[in-house]
Structure formats: structure tokens, C-alpha cells
């Protein structure tokens, strides 16, 4: 006999997907509620595996959620667990702290939400007693480590710590209750159920440290398959960890090398082959690809010029592959192996070079920057971030957009000449 539980975190219930692929109404219908589908899958897993408990290590919601429909949905899923006799152990994460619906939710008494002081709950299993230690920090920011607040391990029981932490820090994630892996290993618990970072990580050592990652990626920055952890604590308190897939849709950056390709048809065949390769490797039901064309091809100018056509062809290829969508097409192509050297004979390339030097001229940049800021000011506040969150971001955006505009103009001039 053994004690079994499912460990998940960062569900961000009803936080929408961020992908232009959802412009396709069919896909929007399929994955418009992907985070719910993932959460339902987690509950399904608990019931199918007849586990004893479900551990949610924070960020059940996104801070932005204010709809009680979200709460209702959650309550219905919790009721399913309650009926099946599965206890839920839950701490609040930085996003939950911001959520307004948290307070309103009435949950069954088999759902245990740890409060601001560390609390230890013992659940007696068939062969082993398990002590769950948890702590919810009430504020969205937790600059200090929370580890010192956790109780010492209980004698005679398997100890499981539940903690929302950014560990030593991770790009793209705010610092929250920072804490070193070594300290956690040294605390004497059998298992640390962590949350906050959206990429799955398992740190083996004295105890099992698992960051299960988000169960459903929301954009290409949360690419790849997403999962939860099924944990088995045997009677001798040894721990076994299994990863179980939960993502309904998975994002992937798909790079296709077009080197040597000189015909459209051939380029599309390569794109389809690239998508097929990813489709075969992806276990999630749906695949959303950000396609990047790379390499050296005589077709590069023509592809860049007829970008709309290229996008349409890529989308069609994805449809042929099945359950696959293209959210964006990016170009990283060069026309020929011999790059623009000092003495350029081709006036078009000379013009392009001149434009590139514009991009690095402060006078032109300041004019461009002003133009960008003016344009952005007229957009909805939520749609301004693409030009960078700060000054450095803006400069980066300028670099990108100016480089893009050189390619754009060159492609039009170049490709137009051979028409």
C-alpha cells in the first residue's frame, strides 16, 4: 500500500491563451478554454488514479480574473474531488493574492487552504501517515525566503512541504519568496511541492524537489508539452515521481531551413515537413507553431515580399498536417552566401546599406522613436507592450523594426525587378 497524490501549480484558471492563431475561429472554439480543459484533466487524473490527495502549490488563478463563473467552475471541480474522497491541499501564490474571487469562494471541507502561518496537517494513509506543511503569503510580493517559517519534519510521518517560490530566480518570472535548492534539500522533508515557475523542473537530492510547471502553456514563451506530477509515497517513505501530460494545446517554435530552395512549391513542402516532424513529436491534442524560415535561398526576397501568400500557404500546410495551426511567420533568410561587402555594385543593396546606416544613426533613430511613441499612444493600453516594456525594450524594438523595414523595402525592390 502507498500514499498517492497529484502535484500541480500555476493553473492560472481562465487566463486566456496569447496567440494570433486564435484568429482562426475553429481553433478558438477548440482551445478558447484550454486552462479549464487542463484543470478538468487534472481532476480526471485524480479520479482515474484513485489518489488520496491533490496538491496545488499556488497560482490557481490569474490576478486579473474577476468573473465568478471562474469560481463556480472551480467549485464544481472541487465538488467532484470531494465526492471521490480526494483531499485538496492548496496554498496561495502571488497571483492568487491579487485575485478578488479567492475570498468569495466556498469550498468543501476536504479542501484545505493553508493560511498565513505555517500549518501542518497529517493525513493517515493505509500504510503511512503523511504530514502536509503549507503556508500562504497574503501579499503579491514576498521578497524574503519563507522557508524559516516552515515547521520541522514530523517524526514517523512522511513530510511534504508546499511552497510558492521563484527559487534562485528564473527569467520571465517575478522574484517571489526566493530560496535556494540546497536549503530546501536540507530541511528534512521527503518531498517539496513547489510552484511559481512555469517550466517543469525536478531537483533530486536529499528530498524530491519538483516544480511541475504550468499545466497548459499560454503562449509560445511557454512552449512544449505541459504536465503535472503523480507522486507515490511508499510505506518505507521512499518517493516515486511520474510526469503526466495535461496540455490540450502546445506551442512550439518551428524553424525551417530553406537553404538551396529556389521554388515556392519546394519551400512549402519543406514547411510542411517541418510541421509534420513537430506534430509527430507532440503529444498534446493541438499544436500551435510559430514558424521561422531560415537559411540562404534565392527565394528569400520573393517570400518576404509576398508574405501574405507565404502565410496562407503555411496555414494550408498546417491544415494538411492536421490539428496544427501557424500563429506567425518569421523570416531569418539571406539571399545569397556572399553578403553585402564594402564595394557593393548593386544599387539596391547600396540603398539597403544606406538604410541600415540610418538605423544606427541617432538622428534618424530619434525621429523613428518619436514616431513609434506617437503611434503607440493611440492604441489601447493593453496593446502597447509590443514595443518594449522599458527604454531598453523600445531600443530593441527599434532595432528589430528598422532591420525589418530594410528587408521589406529591399524585398519589394528586388523581387519586383524580376516580375
Amino acid at each position, binding site marked *: 500500500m502507498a500514499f498517492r497524490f497529484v502535484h500541480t501549480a500555476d493553473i492560472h484558471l481562465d487566463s486566456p491563451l496569447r496567440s494570433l492563431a486564435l484568429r482562426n475561429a475553429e481553433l478558438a472554439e477548440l482551445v478558447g478554454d484550454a486552462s479549464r480543459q487542463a484543470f478538468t484533466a487534472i481532476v480526471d487524473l485524480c479520479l482515474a488514479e484513485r489518489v488520496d490527495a491533490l496538491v496545488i502549490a499556488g497560482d490557481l488563478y490569474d490576478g486579473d480574473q474577476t468573473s465568478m463563473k471562474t469560481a463556480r467552475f472551480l467549485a464544481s471541480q472541487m465538488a467532484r474531488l470531494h465526492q471521490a474522497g480526494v483531499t485538496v491541499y492548496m496554498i496561495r501564490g502571488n497571483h492568487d493574492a491579487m485575485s*478578488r474571487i479567492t475570498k468569495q469562494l466556498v469550498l468543501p471541507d476536504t479542501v484545505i487552504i493553508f493560511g498565513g502561518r505555517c500549518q501542518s496537517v497529517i493525513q493517515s494513509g493505509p500504510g503511512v501517515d503523511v504530514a502536509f506543511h503549507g503556508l500562504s503569503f497574503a501579499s503579491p510580493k514576498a521578497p524574503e525566503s519563507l522557508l524559516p517559517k516552515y515547521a520541522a519534519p514530523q517524526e514517523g510521518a512522511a513530510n511534504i512541504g508546499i511552497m510558492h517560490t521563484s527559487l534562485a530566480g528564473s527569467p520571465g518570472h517575478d522574484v517571489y519568496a526566493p530560496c535556494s535548492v540546497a536549503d530546501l534539500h536540507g530541511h528534512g522533508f521527503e518531498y517539496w511541492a513547489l510552484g511559481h515557475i512555469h517550466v517543469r523542473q525536478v531537483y533530486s537530492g536529499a528530498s524530491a524537489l519538483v516544480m511541475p510547471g504550468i499545466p497548459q502553456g499560454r503562449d509560445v514563451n511557454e512552449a512544449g508539452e505541459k504536465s503535472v506530477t503523480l507522486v507515490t509515497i511508499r510505506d518505507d517513505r521512499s518517493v516515486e515521481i511520474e510526469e503526466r501530460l495535461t496540455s490540450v494545446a502546445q506551442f512550439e517554435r518551428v524553424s525551417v531551413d530553406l537553404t538551396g530552395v529556389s521554388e515556392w512549391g519546394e519551400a512549402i513542402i519543406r514547411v510542411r515537413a517541418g510541421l509534420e516532424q513537430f506534430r509527430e513529436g507532440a503529444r498534446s491534442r493541438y499544436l500551435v507553431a510559430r514558424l521561422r524560415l531560415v537559411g540562404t535561398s534565392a527565394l528569400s526576397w520573393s517570400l518576404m515580399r509576398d508574405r501574405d501568400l507565404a502565410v496562407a500557404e503555411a496555414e494550408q500546410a498546417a491544415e494538411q498536417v492536421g490539428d496544427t495551426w501557424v500563429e506567425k511567420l518569421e523570416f531569418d533568410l539571406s539571399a545569397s552566401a556572399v553578403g553585402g561587402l564594402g564595394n557593393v*555594385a*548593386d544599387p539596391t543593396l547600396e540603398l539597403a546599406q544606406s538604410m541600415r546606416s*540610418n538605423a544606427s544613426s541617432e538622428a534618424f533613430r530619434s525621429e523613428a522613436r518619436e514616431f513609434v511613441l506617437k503611434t503607440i499612444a493611440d*492604441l489601447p493600453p493593453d496593446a502597447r507592450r509590443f514595443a518594449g516594456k522599458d527604454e531598453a525594450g523600445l531600443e530593441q524594438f527599434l532595432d528589430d523594426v528598422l532591420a525589418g523595414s530594410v528587408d521589406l*523595402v529591399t524585398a519589394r525592390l528586388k523581387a519586383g525587378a524580376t516580375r
Partner: protein
Amino acid sequence: MRLRRLDLTRYGKFTDKAIDFGEKPSSAPDLHIVFGLNEAGKSTALSAYLDLLFGIEERSRYNFLHEYSSMRIGGLLEFEGRTLAVSRTKSRGNSLHDAEGRPLSEIAISANLTGLSRDAYSSMFSLDDETLEAGGRAILESRGDLGKLLFTASAGLGHASDVLAALDTEADGLYRKQAQSTEIALLKKRFAELKLRKEAIDTLASTFEALEAERVEAQDKYDRSLAERAVLSARLATIERYARAAPLLAEIKRKASRLAELPDMPSPSRTWSGSVAELIDQDTRLRTRLQANADEIERAKAKIEAIAVDEAVLAISEQVRGLADRKARYLSAGMDLPTRKMEVQMLDQVVATCLAALGRSAEQDPSRLTLPAFVVGTLRNMVEQRSGITTSLQMARDEAAAALDRLNAARGRVGEERAVPEPARARLMAAVSGAKQSSHTREIREARAVEAERQIRLADAMRRLQPWSGDVDLLSKMSVPPPTQLAAWKTLAADLRRDKAVFTERLAEYEQSRITTSSWLAAVRASANLADDETAAAIRRERDEAWRSHRADLKVETADLFATALAKDDHVGAGRLAHASELADLRAVKQKVAETEAAIERAGCQLAGASQRAEIASAEIKEAASALLHHCQAQSLDLLIGLLEERLSARADALASWDDILLARARIECAIAEGERIHLALASALQSVGIQPDAGEPLEATVVAADRFLDRQAKVDAERAEALRSIAAKEEELAARRLPVEIAERREGAWQAEVKETLKGTWLEEGIAGTGLGSVLDQLSELSRALQDREAMRIRIRKMEADRTALAEEVARLGAKGGECVSDEAPEQVSVRLTERLEQAERAREARANLLLDVQTLREVREALKGEVGANDTTKQEVLDAFGVRTLSEVSERDEQLRERDGLQSTVAELEERLTSELALEDFAQARSLLECLDLGELAIEKAEIERRLADLDEALQQQLVRRTRATDKLDAIGGDSQVARIDAERRTVLLEIEEKAARYIELKLGVMSAASALRVYRERHRSGMMSQASDAFALITRGQYTGLTTQPVNGGEVLIATQRDGQSKVADALSKGARFQLYLALRLAGYYEFAKLRPSVPFIADDIMETFDHLRSEEVFRLFSEMANVGQVIYLTHHKHLCEIAKSVVPNVVIHELR
């Protein structure tokens, strides 16, 4: 680089073909012409050359003879004096080989092409009709922008402007500030819509909180109210029980006191049946009935005594009843008899009348006159036939008479008028037809109409010639200038008019220029606040004067004056020094002003000259046509010529009209003579038929008279012929009518004979006319019927009188038997009286029998009643004994009292039971003591209070229930569906789309900005190198029509301007289409020089670009190519033989390669 030889080993239509361009000539231009007719393979050769340099194209079109795998080209290339033999096959890698067939790196060629791609090479160094056309268009679209033009020409592109404009348009489609229909604007709208939709269906956490609080509070209040209500309800129930119990106790007490008043004895046991009341009732009833029975018997006996019966009548009862029928017959006969007798008399009268009609009034036995039935039948039949026979005879006779009348009438109509003889009539007819066919009258009419119309025209033309006056003769003799002279004057006038317009326009242009330069001058002056040369000189003079005076006096005042003048001069000098360039402009402008003034003057002189020439011409015209232009005051030469033309045309019209008039008059005379000849012929013909026409009668009237005569003759002939035909017809008709008359007369005779035969042997045998036969028959039939009726009536009267006599005898006999006195009474009255007596006697006998039966029955009843009375008396005695009283009425009183007592006792017991159970106590004693302690008044007050409180509570409960239900419903309605989540997802997608479009917009706009700036840089870098080349080439190619190219700055840029030979200048986009082609060509050549200046040259290939050029232009182009060929190799592909010859004449050393 140079192409020495091109090997078309296996390529397109070529197999082992080579074009050898030879070594570069040392002192002559390196110019080659490849000549081949259409389809000779010029384009193939060009493509082969590019394939040799850059590799055979993936989907080459030149595999129709040689497969891809076997395609091969080669050549000998020269690089800076070094030669390289290469060959090329079609494959993905290693397609380039050296002379020995070893693979060669692409760098061997590409290193010498300074990074040119195939596309770049073909756009920069080859030129064909299409690119020339596109280049011309590009000049138009560039609006003369120098940067764009230089770039377009160097890159060999025709669409650089297009591309930038298209990008700008694309960007505007994405976003424009405050535009409503750009893609981003639409997305923003969509975003707002989604927000509204979400708000419409979502429940926020805050709303939820409020609802939940409401629900909990309502539930709580509801529960509390409910508890309070329960307590109060219980108390109210108790009070109500007490209230119900109190009256019960009072009732019990009342009943107990009544009980005490009633006797206390046991109730007797009942041994009899029925109640005491019934017993009393039975006793009384029996006695009453016994008495009534006795009375009845006495009354019946008395009645029997009183009844008497008439026995006499009863003895003859049967006979009396038999009288009734016979008496009825007697009465009706008495009434009928007179009528019947009257009818017999009437029939006698009828018989007498019939006899009179038949003429036999004296006949004693009328029945003898009746005819046998078969005779009557035959006669009837014959009478019917008679009328048909008579009618047909009459009709036949009438028709025959009418036919005879008609024949006589027809005979009378023949032969009244006779016709004129035929020959005379024929002659007259010929004369009339000749008169009718003649057309002389129409000719006269037409000629007169023509004459009148020409007269009007003549008058009109004469009017147009005013103020000149005179007759036609004078007019025809007048001298006029010949048409050639007039044409010469018109040409002169047109020339003068055009010159005047040109000079006037030029004058206006110069005036405009003067105004412009003047304002420019003022502006230049104002802008720099400069002193011009004169002012400066004046100031300098002032300074020198001041110095002279100071030097003479050397005073403080003069020193000051000098200092001031010096300072002023210095200031002006310094200003002019600082603005040297403006000063130069100023001078130039002044120069321009002077030039403009001179030009104005020149133009004025030219205008005056033109006017003078016009006046001279006017005088000449007036002289030549003095008669027509007698008092003419025309202002201008044009007007004068117009007037002259008009007068000449009027004169011509007048003369022509006069000619027509003369002609018409001659025709009229001719026609009149013809008319007279015809008239004579006709008159003579008329006389020959005996008609003498009037002497002065016109021809038309004579013709009509003749016509009328001929018509009448024709009618007379026709009428006679018709009358003769009619007589013959009438004679035939008469013969036909006489036959039916005979037939009818035969039938009449036969009928008369038959009648006679039938009447033979009757009293009518002699003497009866056929016509009277019918009425005799009718009278005979009526007589026979009257005789029969009279006999029947007489028999009936006899029978009636016999009946009456029989009755009278019978009545007399019966009256005697019944004792009636019947002496002189009518028998019917006696009969009635007998009948009445019989009825009375029978009724009396029946009544007496009934009464005897009644008496018998009553006696039987009396015996039964006596038995019943005895039994009743026994029972009565028994009851009296039981109650111990003497009468039955006492018994019933006692019985009543005992019943009441028993009832009260059981009621009291029952009430006590109810009271005890109502109060839920064990026995009545407890209940009684409890109730006696209660104050009912206080309880009533308490009850009222509780009831009011309960009503309040009920209302409160209802309110809380509603609140709770409402809140619960709303909470339940929230639902856990994903609608809001899906809208959020859609909103997120819209935001991403906005971001994507905005980024694209920025990219497009910055691209356009950056490209514009890059084009400026391009211009700066290449203008000096290209402008002089292009200017020279343009002058050459336009054969000096344009002297060259120059530029002019405009805001933010510079435009290209072409200068014309006459000093005027045009911005490049204002050039004509042909000139634009030439300008593009010139710029392309300049681009080639610019390329070759910095890098080793490459061959330039032109493909038949001179289709639209004339001979001279073509020469100039070849001259240019020959110059270019001094810098690099130039190859010209053509299918025009004459171009080869032109090239040879311009460049004697040109090499011509013929392609076959």
C-alpha cells in the same frame, strides 16, 4: 569583364554554335551587333550568357531540344587581360568547369562581378523595349526627384517610386490617426464590443459578495421570525381551548337544575304495540265510521221509493227507434222536389229551341230526327277536308292573275329612248382621252412655281448685296476679284492672326517674369537687408565727402560727421561682405530684370509690325473689290475678307436665280400652245354627236360635257337590254301558274259528290248546302243530349213522392199504440215526441236498480266495523292499567315527563366528557375547578395581542423568503460555463492582432522614411559622376533639341531639369513621352559609366530598343553606344537590317555577327 566567345554547345535550338566576339580592339570601340531575324535565337543567346555567368536556371525553358542533363554552354571570358575558358552544365552543384572539364568554383566568376546577382546584372546591364518603357514611366512617377531618377537608372529599375508609394498606401490601410476604417480602427472597435459583451454576461466577485450577504441575512431573519411564531401560536391555541370550555360548564349546570324538577319513578315496560296517541286516535275514528254507515242506508231507501217508470212506451220501443232513418229521408225529399220540377221545365225549353234551329218546330217526335252514328262520323270527316280544298283553289287563281299583271307591265317598259350611232361616239371618246392624257397644265403649274421661288431668292440675294443697288444686268457685268486671289488673302490673314497670338502670349509671359523677378528682387533685398551697389556707392561717396570736409576743417563736428559716415560705410561694407552670395544673387536678379525689359520691348515691336501688314492687305482688298465693298467699314482684315466672301456668294446666288427664271418662262409658253390644239379637236368631235359646245367654254368644261354625254349613252343601252330579258321571264312564269288552278278545281267537284252519296236515305237527303252541313250536325247532337236528360229527371221525382207517403202512414199507426193524440199534427213532430218518452223511461229503470245494490253493500260494512270496535276497547284498558290513570290523555302527559328526564341525564354525561377532553384533564372535577379559577376577560385581551403579532410575523416571513429566493436564484444563475473565459481569449487575440498590425505599420512607415533618406544619400553620392555624362548623352541623343540637364533644389530635395535649345527648361516629368525614353537612356548610360568608373566594366547588352526611334535618333544612339564601347563591351541585339547599316555608317569599326 569581357565576353570573348559564347559557346552554345547544347542549349535551346542551338547545337555546337559559337559567337566569337574576338579580342578587344585596341583603338576602336568594342561595339558588336548580333543580327538575326525573328526566332533566330537572340533571346536564347542572351539567356545563355546569363546562365553561363550565374548557372542554368532551375526551370530553364531551353530544354526543348536538349534535355536538362545534356544541356551545356561555354565561353571564353576576359578578366583584366586574363582569359578564362569555362563551360556550364545544369546541376545543383559543381556546374562550372574549366577548359579541361575540371570543376571550378563559382568564385572564379563571381569574384569579378563585385557581388552582382543574376537579377541585378540583368536589370543593370541589359536593356530592352520593356525596361525602356518602364524607365520612361518611372521618370513621370518620380516627379523629377533626382535621387529616385539616379537610383532608378543605375539599378535599371522602373518601379522604385511605385514600391515606396505602395508601401505608404499599405501602411495607411493599417492605421491613420482618427480614421475609422483602417484595420487597427476596426480592431479597436471590436475590442470595445467584446468588453461590452463580457460585461453583459459576467458576474463580478464584488456583485457575488453582495448577493451572498443578502442571502445569508435573509435566511437568518427568516429563521428567527419562524421560532417566535411557533411560541405565540401555541399560547393562542390554549386560550382558544379555555374559551371553548367555559360555555360547556355553564350548560352542564343548567341541565342539572332541570333534572331535579322531574318525577323520580321507573319508566313502565311497554306490552302493547303503538303509542298512546295512536290508541286515542283509533278509538275515536271507529265510532265515527259506525254512525256514518247507518245514516247512509236510510238515505238510499228513501230514493228508491221516489222513482216512477213509463211502461207504455217501453212496449213499442223497437218501432219508435226504427222511425229515425225514414224521417230523415222524408225531410230531405220535401226540400228537393220543387228544384227538380224546375229543371224538367228547362229541358223542355232546350228541345223546343233545337227543333226550331233545324226548322222542324212542328215535329211531334223529336227523336225521329236523330241521324245514325256512322253517317255523322263520315260527314264530320268530310267537313274537315272541305276547308283545305277551298283555300288551295283560291291561292292558285290569285297567283295566276298576278303573273299576268307583271307581264303586261314589262311589255310597257320597252323602247322609249334610242342611242347615238357608234362611230360618232368612238371619235368623241378618242378626243376626250387625248385631252386627258396631255400634261401641259401640270407643266405650266410647275414652271410657275419655280419662277416664283427663284424670284424670292433673287430678291434675297439682292438684299444681301446692299448697300449696292442696281438690276441683274448691271450685276452680271460687274468686275470681281478671282477666287485664287481671295485664297491668298485668307492665308495671309491666318498667318497674321497666329503671329499676333504668339507675340501677345510672349509679351504676357515676359510681363509675368518681370513681376516675379521684381518681387524676387524685393525679397532678396528685404531678406538680407542689403544695400545694393548704388546705395553702397552713395554711402561711400558720402563718407569720402565727410573726410574731405573734415580734412579741410579738422573740427570736432566734422570729425563726428566723418565718424558717423565711416561707421555707416563700414556697416554696409561688412553686411555686403557677409552676404556676398546674396549680393551676387541680387546682381543676377537685376541683370534678369534688365533682360526681361528688353524682351518686352522686342515683343511689342513684333506686334506692331503684324498690325501694319494687316492694314496693307485691307487696302488691297478694298481696291480690288471696290464695287462690292462700296461703303465698307470693316475693322479687321478677317472681317473684311469675311464680308467680301459673303458679297461674292450673294452675287453668284442672284445670277443663278435669274437664269432659272428665264428658263421657267419659256416652258410656260410651250405648254399653253399644246392646250389650244387639244381644245379644237374636242369641239369638233362633240359637234359630230350633235352637241354644240359654247364658244368661250374652257377645255376642262368641254371635257366634262363630253364625259357626261358618253356616260348617259352607255346607261341607255344597258337599260333596253335588261327590259327585253324581263318580258321573256314573265311569260314563262304565267304559264307555270295556270296549272295548279286546274288541279284545285277537280278536287272541289269530287268532294261535292261524296257528300251527296253519304246523305242518301236520311231526312236530309234532299236539300242541304255543303257549307251548312257542319252546323246541322252540331244541332242534332245537342237535341239528342237534351232528350236523354229530361227522361232521367222525371223518374227521380216520382220516387221521392212515394217515400213521403209511406212515413206518414207509419207515424199514425204508432201514435195510436202509444196513446198519443195525432189528429192534425205533422208526422215528424209525433215521431220526435215518441222518441223522447222512450229515453226517459229507460233512464228511470236503470237508477232504481243501482240504489238497490248500494243498500246491500252498506249493510255488509256495518257488520265489519262492529268487530273492530270490540278489539280496540280491550287494548285501551290494558294501557290505562299500566300507567295507573283513568283516561288516555293522562297517560300521554306522564309518558312525556319520563322521556325528558332520561334525555337530560345522558346529555349532562356527554358534556362532562367533552369538557374534560377539551382541557386535556383526567376528570370533570379537575376541569371544573380549573375553569372556575380563570379570568376570561384577561384572556380575550391576550388573544387579540397575540393575533396581531402573528400577522406581523407572517408578513416579515414572506419578505425574508422572497429576498432569500431572489438572491439564491441570482447566485444559481451565475453558472460555471466558460463564456467569459472565451470572450477574454478573444479579447486577448484582438489585442495581439492590434499589436501585430501596429508593428507592421511602424515597419512600413519607417521603411518609407528610411528609404527616402537613403535615396537622398544616393543622390549626393552619385550626382556629380552621373550628371555631366547624362547631360551630354541627352544633348546628343536629342540632336541638340535639349542642350543638357541641370538640377534645381526644391524643399527637401532636388529635381532634374532639362534645358531646351531656346533657353527654356522643363522638369523631367514634364517631358514628352519620347523625350522621357531618351532621358532614361541617357541616365542608364551615365549609370554605366558610374559603375565602370569604380569597378571593372561588364558587357552591356541592349535588345532592339530603337523600334520607335527615327533614323537620326538611331544614329545618335549608336554614337553613344560607340562611346560606351570605349569603356566596356557593348552588344546590341537586333532583327533590323537597316540598323546594322546605320551602325556601320556611324561606327565604321562595328562588328556584326549574324545569327542563323
